[in-house]
């Protein structure tokens, strides 16, 4: 995660480049038709953005904006318009705090990891544990997914892999009690960072969202100010429902950022543009594989670059 900028772009590009699918050709075709910027350019642009999961509203507003910019600045050349597009997307994605600091005013820094089923929460925690350890921090894991079969075992394997201790209870135990114990142990042992795994849940399940609120509450009770970060893990293949997920998870919790996983596939994760634009939740991390090193910090310009690389 501490790779130099070029390396990050290069790596992401390489990952993303495995199958650039039609997107690259599309954008090339759209923008390098050579010559006048006509309707077909904007139609093509619409297609590219929709297929990247930006959604109808966001896409239409960007295309509208591009039309007016093209007109205003009398842009004739598709390449120039492409630059404007990248700029526009970067401007949307840039606001907010994309950094993760891993430092609390006092005591351990606590991160709660949440999201719908299968989005990549546990794997992201494993990767973070490896990264933080490498950065010289002491880490503790809290296994608050007591619901899914073998979820505790899964996190335990990550704890062994990364040499990081874990606090766990029995399957079916109260997740809030696990979280409390983990916070307690983190304080007692004086660790730098506590990462709390939670069970995947659909944002529409009111009682399960209440359960998360309770976890957030009890952690704060034990360690004032905690959790310092609440990461919403979002799968890049998610379509428009991602916005709804982000909305409801933020309504319930103090979500501080998004971790966008599975960017090593062909999905573009464009819903984060809508999430950032409409809800102002910054993306903090991107996942590009299943290995411990496959986690990167988010950078708006790189992300946009990689989107159309």
């Amino acid at each position, binding site marked *: 995660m501490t790779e130099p900028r070029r390396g990050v772009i290069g790596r992401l590009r390489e990952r993303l480049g495995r199958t650039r699918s039609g997107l690259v050709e599309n954008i090339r075709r759209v923008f390098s038709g050579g010559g006048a910027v006509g309707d077909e350019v904007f139609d093509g642009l619409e297609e590219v953005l929709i297929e990247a999961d930006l959604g109808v509203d966001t896409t239409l507003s960007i295309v509208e904006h591009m039309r007016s910019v093209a007109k205003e600045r009398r842009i004739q050349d598709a390449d120039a318009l492409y630059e404007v597009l990248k700029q526009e997307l970067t401007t949307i994605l840039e606001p907010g705090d994309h950094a993760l600091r891993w430092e609390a005013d006092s005591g351990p820094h606590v991160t709660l990891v949440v999201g719908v089923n299968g989005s990549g929460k546990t794997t992201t925690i494993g990767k973070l544990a490896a990264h933080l350890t490498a950065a010289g921090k002491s880490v503790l894991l809290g296994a608050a997914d007591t619901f899914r079969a073998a979820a505790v075992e899964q996190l335990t394997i990550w704890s062994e892999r990364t040499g990081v201790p874990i606090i766990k209870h029995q399957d079916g135990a109260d997740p809030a009690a696990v979280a409390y114990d983990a916070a307690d142990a983190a304080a007692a042992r004086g660790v730098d960072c506590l990462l709390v795994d939670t069970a995947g849940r659909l*944002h529409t399940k009111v009682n399960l969202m209440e359960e998360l609120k309770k976890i957030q509450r009890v952690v704060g009770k034990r360690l004032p100010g905690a959790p310092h970060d609440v990461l919403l893990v979002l799968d890049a293949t998610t379509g428009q429902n991602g916005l709804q997920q982000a909305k409801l998870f933020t309504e319930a919790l103090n979500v501080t950022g998004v971790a966008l996983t*599975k960017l090593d*596939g062909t999905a573009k994760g464009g819903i984060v543009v809508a999430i950032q634009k409409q809800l102002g939740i910054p993306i903090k991390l991107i996942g590009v594989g299943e290995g411990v090193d496959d986690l990167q910090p988010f950078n708006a310009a790189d992300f946009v670059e990689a989107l159309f690389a």
Partner: protein
Amino acid sequence: MFESLSKKLERAFKNIRGQGKLTEKNMKDSLQEIRLALLEADVNYKVVKQFVADVQDAAIGQHVLDSIQPGQQIVKLVHDELVKLMGGGNEPLKMAQTPPTIIMLVGLQGQGKTTTAGKLAFHLKKKGHKPLLVGADVYRPAAIKQLEVVAGQAGVESFSLGENADPVDTCVMARGEAQMRGCDVILLDTAGRLHVDGQMMDEVRRIHAQVSPHEILFVANAMTGQDAVNSAKQFNDALPLTGVFLTQMDGDARGGAAISLITVTGRPIKFIGTGEKLDAIQAFHPRRMADQILGMGDVVSLVEKAQEVVDQEKALQFQEKARKASWDLEDFLEQMQQVKKMGSMGELLNKIPGMSKMMGKDVEFDEDELKYTEAIIYSMTPKERHNPKVINGSRRRRIADGSGTSVQDVNRLLKEFQQTKKMVKQMMKGKGGKGRMGNRARLPF
């Protein structure tokens, strides 16, 4: 969140009334609305393009009927085309003539394959089969353990050579294992993999070549976006998929990926997953799916939805209870959740063509109200839920505190419950009459 499509179309169609025939020109606005609605629902861009062109072809030259509401004609057309595209529905699993039947589950990471394997095993067990769950995911930590736990929950056999074995070997060995244990269905839970991962796709191809499964189900999540076409296409190119299992249909996703998946694979959706529990599996209903994707519906299907309980057995149980009036707060909650999962209440009610007209305004339904109700019922003890009569003053206080509501809220809920209970009872008595108005008037919510 979404303005109902029928409402938009009513607007777009104002101009067409009385114009005689549908033409490319007078349909333009409506088709654009339909296009956007499908895109909003996550149907793939190219798939939408083709679909809308097909609809247009089918519609051109048709007479504009004066008898029905503007917009409805084309909504119906689109709806019919969607249903047609999604097939007849209810495609059963193909069982081998001579056992064992081998069913292989494949898909991307995190789609719910292991849970789905458990659901299928449970479903088959209930139908009198003896399934063997086979753990072939050696990559994700504790995946095999997860499958074993799920097998235990489902009360079926499980088998794996473990994490250090070649998953191909595990799948091959499963056949002998099944024979030994007298199992007639083998369910292969393979690791999630990216369609662009050459090595992993090769592995799944080898498994297929070695075991020749009767069913190869592509497991995909209902929240999937535009990329569904890419992953499905490459899985379908690598393996002769026989069907799709669409998971996480209990959320609020519109589920347009269903259309993309069917279009790309040419295979039907055989089941949908509607929850985390093992019995949360249902047959696929194209008509309901079309309703959901378009953000519309009719009264009949709304009523069906509201009445739908997870399985037939439960539905019968429910009717029985309703008749005997032993219908309790848990049933009330379950009904509510069933309705809720179809989309937000307001959205749902507004989906009913003519509903807004009938009510003279947009139907408002307080979503928070639903949340409160849930919170209140969750704060009751099982006994209280079964027999609300025992809920006295101090219990009401406790329930209000527990759910973060007021005693008045609790009182109101209990009153509503009583009223609904009465209505349900009537509804059950009057069952059979499927007249639109009749059903509408008896809607329990």
